[in-house]
C-alpha cells in the first residue's frame, strides 16, 4: 500500500475500492487529518514516519505467526527456544518482536487450552500477527472471554470436552501473548509450508484449534 506524498490532505488514501468522499467523513475522521497535518507542520513527525508505520503494519500478518508455529511443530528444539526466549527466537526467523516488552508463548496441550484477551482495551502481539481483528477489540469479547471462555469458543466453532481446562490470559501494554496451538492429528510428514497453512490467526489467539489437514 502506498500513499501519494504530493498531496498531504489525501496522503492516507489507499486507492482501494472503498473511497470515502471527504465531506462525508465523521467528526473524528476529519480530526485525524487535521492532527496529522498540524503534527507535520510543526515538525513533530514527518510524512515518512507515518508512511513507515503504514508499511510496517501492512507487512505484519498472521503468516508470521504461522511460520513460527509450523517450525515449532516440526522442530522440538526450536519449540523449546520459542517458549524459553520468544523474542530471540522470533529474530532467528527474521521477525522483529523487540517492540513488545514481555512476550509470552503459551503452549496448548490435549488437556489445557489457552485463550488471549485484552479486557481493558486491545493489546495484541502486533509484530507477530498484525493489527487485531474487530472482534478482539469488541466490548462483548472483552467482557465474556474471562468468565465464559467456553461459550465464546463455541461461537467460533470450537467445542471442548469439560475435562479440558481453559486458561485465559489478559494482555497489558507491557505483556503480549501468542498461543502455540496443538499440532493437528494426521499431519505427520507434512512440510513446514504445508503445516503453516493449517495455522489460522484465530488459533494463535486461542479461540479455536488449527485447521485439520485435508
Amino acid at each position, binding site marked *: 500500500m502506498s500513499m501519494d506524498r504530493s498531496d498531504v*490532505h489525501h496522503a492516507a488514501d489507499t486507492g482501494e475500492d472503498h473511497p470515502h468522499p471527504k465531506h462525508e467523513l465523521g467528526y473524528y475522521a476529519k480530526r485525524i487529518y487535521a*492532527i496529522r497535518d498540524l503534527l507535520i507542520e510543526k515538525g513533530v513527525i514527518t510524512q515518512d514516519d507515518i508512511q513507515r508505520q503504514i508499511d510496517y503494519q501492512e507487512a505484519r500478518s498472521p503468516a508470521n505467526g504461522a511460520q513460527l508455529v509450523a517450525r515449532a511443530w516440526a522442530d522440538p528444539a526450536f519449540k523449546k527456544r520459542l517458549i524459553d526466549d520468544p523474542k530471540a527466537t522470533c529474530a532467528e526467523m527474521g521477525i522483529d518482536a523487540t517492540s513488545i516488552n514481555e512476550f509470552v508463548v503459551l503452549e496448548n496441550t490435549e488437556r489445557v487450552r489457552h485463550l488471549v484477551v485484552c*479486557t481493558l482495551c486491545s493489546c495484541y502481539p502486533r509484530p507477530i500477527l498484525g493489527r487485531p481483528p*474487530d472482534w478482539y477489540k469488541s466490548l462483548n469479547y472483552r*467482557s465474556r472471554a474471562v468468565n465464559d471462555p467456553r461459550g465464546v469458543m463455541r461461537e467460533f466453532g470450537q467445542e471442548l470436552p469439560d475435562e479440558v481446562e481453559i486458561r485465559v490470559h489478559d494482555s497489558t501494554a507491557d505483556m503480549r501473548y501468542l498461543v502455540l496451538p496443538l499440532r493437528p492429528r494426521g499431519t505427520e510428514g507434512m512440510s513446514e509450508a504445508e503445516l503453516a497453512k493449517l495455522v489460522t490467526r484465530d488459533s494463535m489467539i486461542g479461540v479455536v484449534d488449527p485447521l485439520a489437514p485435508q
Partner: protein
Amino acid sequence: MARRHHDMGGLPAGPVDQTEHALSDWEILADAVNQALGEKKIKRTDEMRRAREDMDSELYRSLSYYERWIASMETILTEKKILTREEIDRKVAAFEKKWGEP
C-alpha cells in the same frame, strides 16, 4: 472504588460479532500516526489508555475503536501542549470549506 467503563472483564454481554471490516483510510492513518508518536516517545501505550479511560462513559461506548484512539490522541497532544483544540478546529473548518461542506 467503582468499576470504570473500560474495565469490562466478566460483565454480562451478548454474542461476539465476528464480522470484520476493511479499514478505511482515516483508520489506517489514525493507527499510523499513533504508532509514529509512540516511536518518537511522544506518547506511551498506557498514557493513551488512561486518556480513553478518562473519557465520558457514554461517549466511550458510542465511539468506534479508532474514534476512541483519535479522541485520546487529541487529549494527550493537547495536555502536552503540542497542539490545541482550537488549532484542530480551525484546520477541520478549512478542510470542510475545501471539501465543499457548509
